[in-house]
């Protein structure tokens, strides 16, 4: 589960061999272009989509991998986009929905490319070079580290529930049990946060996160 997003992060394609800063600038450029292009400029958006597809191919990231991740990303995006016509009126609302879906999809696929051509520790080192605030970087590092720990915990809870389900639950029961599991996961996450905080303090942490690059070549 831990490689759900960045399975190809340590491969050796052309893109992987680019300097970290180049990869970051390419990703930022594509995201900037996707978010600035008006929805009415179809050819321009198509060109950006082609560019994203091209860098994915160059990095040898399988299309099926991207499609499966999009499958998980789209439901919340569509939910958010479809709520706009209800609040903004039909004509303006649909246009905004299309904009959100289009920009969201292009940005997500670009971010997915970035984490698959650059191991996360390299990404953090590059962001450190760009002098991003250390609190922000610490949050990113902890989120990346514990997202999958919590995901695995949710998975174990789901398995534990399934082995004691002797009939197919109704849709209402599924929603109910899902909500209960999320609640329990939140409590467990808070407990774990407490323990992680203890572990950080046990090794002398006093509120300031310090970094040291492992190798000089990371700093290039």
């Amino acid at each position, binding site marked *: 589960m*831990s*490689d759900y997003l960045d399975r190809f992060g340590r491969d050796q394609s052309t893109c992987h061999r680019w300097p970290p800063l180049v990869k970051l600038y390419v990703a930022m450029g594509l995201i900037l272009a996707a978010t600035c292009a008006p929805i009415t400029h179809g050819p321009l958006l198509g060109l950006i989509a082609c560019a994203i597809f091209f860098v994915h191919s160059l990095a040898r990231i399988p299309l099926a991998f991207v499609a499966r991740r999009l499958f998980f990303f789209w439901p919340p995006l569509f939910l958010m986009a479809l709520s706009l016509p209800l609040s903004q009126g039909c004509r303006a609302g649909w246009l905004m929905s299309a904009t959100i879906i289009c920009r969201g999809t292009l940005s997500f696929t670009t971010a997915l490319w970035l984490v698959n051509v650059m*191991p*996360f*520790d390299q990404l*953090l080192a590059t962001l450190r070079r760009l002098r991003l605030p250390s609190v922000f970087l610490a949050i990113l*590092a*902890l989120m*990346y*580290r*514990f997202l*999958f*720990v919590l995901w695995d915990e949710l998975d174990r809870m789901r398995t534990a529930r399934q082995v004691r389900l002797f009939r197919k639950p109704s849709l209402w029961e599924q929603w109910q049990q899902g909500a209960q599991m999320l609640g329990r996961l939140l409590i467990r996450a808070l407990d*774990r946060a407490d*323990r*992680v905080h*203890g*572990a*950080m*303090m*046990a*090794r*002398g*942490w*006093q509120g300031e996160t*310090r*970094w*040291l690059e*492992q190798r000089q070549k990371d700093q290039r």
Partner: protein
Amino acid sequence: MTAANAVRVDRLSFRYPGSALTLNDVSFSIASGEIVGLVGPSGAGKSTLLQHLNGLLPTRLSESETNTWIDDIPVTRASLPDVRRRVGFLFQDPDDQLFCPTVFEDVAFGPLNLNLPDDEVRRRVQESLLAVGLSGYESRSTMRLSLGERKRVCLAGVFACQPSILALDEPFSSLDPRARRTLIGILKKFPGSQIVATHDLDVVVELCHRVLLLDGGQLRASGLTNDILGNAALMERHGLEVPLRLQPR
């Protein structure tokens, strides 16, 4: 100068908010270089006691009220940085302790907080990883390690701070025999004092000079390992078993 007692706990009581006494009038001491096993049934207060040694549960913050001394230094709010530098704490679940993306960053976390120069941090990381047999793991992701490897990386993170005392909370739980054997070998080489909370009593027999038996938050027995763990009546009374190594054949 080395303190006579690496750890001294005097009449320590502790209660979590809204619950019964977790520790009740616990007193003991550990000499320098001594390895002490902390045994007892689940919920006996072993982890809570260990957390006091590192100042993670400082209920008494002033010097006059403290019940815990590390190398003769009272555990108070003011002395916490010094105490934590001296006591290396290994958590039960390695996922709680490995919070950095790579092995290098995680092992370097403690030395960086000690404000050591970069070269010294790198040297300590290399040495610590060598001590736990994980040289070459520096750039590995902490998420993609086996449980045994994760425990050893945690231990390397502790070693990198060069503590004089190790407080280990269930270090052998869920380890396969090979990983367990490796960890025992690493701990045997550690020159300082150790307090090891564990349910693995055979390891206690092999590793520890002395045993503290905790039950219901109270220290029920303290003595030489074989005397305590070989006492079948005492062990049974506190929900434990005589380890296989000490059972008559």
